[in-house]
């Protein structure tokens, strides 16, 4: 193999981690929603895409990237709230198939609405000037913006962790993830908890979308590729496990980067092979609860 060096492998590993951070950021909302609501959100990719477009809209209206980072999760989260309240809620208690199918159809609608509003062609989304260019990270050059995304993902995870561990609402959510009955026993309006969780999950997806926009531009179809990857992350980590999503996301990033080095044409299928293998050996994923959803 030409040009293999330790430095390159180190850069490659780092690139894998940075990529994994994006997977984690995207998959975490999926996992949260599944863990709490047992809703397999097939529209998660669409929320991601809408996030990028809302960011674009902020720029078009004369706002800047930093404003977009604030507006997007709020706006997408609110869309999420509406979706939960009016579309997903009537389906609770009807098994996992119906919410899954509903969100599947919903993703068609969201993508098409964006096409109608913004057209079929994609738009460029420039990297904010402050974060342009590549910097030397000791083992090689790496785009500054990717480092920023890595940092942003860490911050989001930290905030989410603090929210879940240190607030009383977070406690209810954690309890509910273990046993949905408990929430009712605690005398909390369960439907309000579901609503908020769905909002948070989709809000983070939207944030991931606007963070990904400077990496790849925006296009209505951008959510569909990453959705498959996020499912792999969620399933490998164990559906409903947030820690699992973090570990699995980073692992998937590294698997992709290592296959990219040795057999790049297999980069895409490698993650599905990983998922198949993990599930065959450990059907509930790394940190999933056995028997859930069976």
């Amino acid at each position, binding site marked *: 193999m030409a040009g293999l060096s330790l430095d*390159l492998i180190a850069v490659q590993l780092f690139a894998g981690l940075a990529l994994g951070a994006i997977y984690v950021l995207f998959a975490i909302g999926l996992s949260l929603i599944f863990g709490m609501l047992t809703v397999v959100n097939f529209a998660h990719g669409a929320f991601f895409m809408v996030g990028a477009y809302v960011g674009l809209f902020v720029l*078009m209206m004369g706002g800047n990237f930093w404003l977009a980072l604030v507006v997007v999760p709020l706006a997408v989260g609110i869309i999420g709230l509406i979706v939960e309240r009016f579309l997903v809620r009537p389906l609770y208690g009807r098994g996992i198939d119906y919410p899954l199918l509903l969100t599947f159809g919903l993703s068609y609608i969201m993508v098409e609405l964006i096409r109608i*509003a913004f057209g079929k062609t994609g738009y460029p989304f420039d990297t904010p000037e402050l974060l342009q260019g590549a910097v030397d990270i000791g083992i090689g*050059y790496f*785009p500054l913006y990717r480092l920023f995304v890595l940092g942003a993902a860490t911050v989001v995870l930290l905030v989410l962790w603090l929210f879940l561990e240190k607030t009383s609402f977070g406690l209810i959510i954690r309890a509910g993830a273990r046993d949905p009955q408990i929430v009712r026993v605690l005398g909390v309006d369960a439907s309000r908890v579901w609503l908020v969780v769905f909002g948070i999950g989709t809000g983070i997806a939207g944030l991931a979308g606007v963070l990904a926009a400077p990496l*790849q531009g925006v*296009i209505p179809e951008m959510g569909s*590729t990453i959705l498959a990857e996020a499912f792999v992350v969620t399933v490998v980590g164990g559906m409903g496990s947030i820690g699992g999503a973090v570990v699995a996301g980073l692992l998937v990033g590294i698997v992709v980067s290592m296959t990219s080095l040795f057999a*790049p044409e297999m980069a895409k299928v490698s993650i599905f092979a990983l998922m198949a293998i993990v599930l065959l050996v450990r059907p509930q994923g790394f940190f999933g609860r056995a028997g859930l959803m069976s």
Partner: protein
Amino acid sequence: MKTTSSKFITRRRLLTTVGTGAVLAASPFRINVVRADEPTIKVGFPTPLTGPYGTEAQDQVRAAQVAIAEFNDAGGLNGRKAELLVRDSKLNPGEAATRTLELIEKDKVNFVVGSLSASVQLAVNNITKERKIIFNSISQSDEINEAKDFSRYTFHEALNPHLTAGAVGRYVFPKFGKKVAFLTADYAYGHQMVRGFQEAGKAFGIQTVIDVRHPLGTSDFSTLLPRIQALKPDVLCISNFGRDQQISLKQATDFGLKKSMKIVAPILLYTGRLAAGAQAFDGVIGGTSYYWGIEDKVASAKVFNDRFRKMNDGKVPSDYGAMGYTGVKVVLEGAKAAGSLDPEKVIPAIEALKYDYYKGPEYYRKCDHQAVQSVLIIESKSKPEKGPADVFNVIATDEPSEKNLRTCAELGFKS
């Protein structure tokens, strides 16, 4: 921002529409209602209106309508007018094949023109050649020229990868160096582009340092680029298409690759450049079949551009779009020359055409019906100067010549 929300129609209205069987004229891409008097000449036009190349497809339809209008304004074929029957192939070969069957079996079209993407064009070709209908393909692939897929009913107005990559290679390699790296979408189109570059490069003694093949539809190249960067090539040929091209160019820019190597793409897409922005494409050299900016030098381009602008609110045609024009024009002019719609008469007529419809002289090679034509070598501007459509500089023209194509024997034709 383009808003087309007026097309949004409520569900009840849709049901009424379907119920009464009336097809509303809500979109320019509806079926034209057949006029009762004289049977028109029907040109079937399957194209991916939905999907990632929807913009190119719409442009193809617009350009094709220009050709239809010209033909009809000039009196048609002894007074018989032509009409375009547009069908959405959804960029899916199965859908394209079904739609082509509809066009042939139900609408009884005389010709089929169109397609975008190699797989769709080969699917349509397989249907048309079985049914002895002339098909003029306006999308790139090398297979369609080869004896296995070719038939005498098959024409190929578009460039092919061998020709495009060769032309770009002949321009780039002597100027920018011999160490060449490839980043290639892992499918036939990408492989053929690489083969085209390498064949052209032989004359210049190029050395391939690596050929990284990425899966089609990759949205992140960050794990593929460090390796290429470490190898320090003089030239990086990125052979992919559409969104893959936009993302890979954008991310190569982010990784700072442009500082140490010249980035080259066999085909630089006009719409791709608009979608990805100037920054990502800045300084990238590539080939194209057509760029509207040649109108200063090529008279036919000026005429075509003006007609197109007139019919489309002053917009200029894109590269792939423009081929919708020639693709349709060729079969109609062939019919006119033959004075008939009988394919057996139209085929020799098209084979005999020497035409200059929009970009300079062209003709079809006898053995594989490939349009022998020029390839424009373009470089992306760092920012538009004369309006938003001003995105490329034409820096060279690879003149039409059969010797730039693979020989008929190489394609499997027995002489």
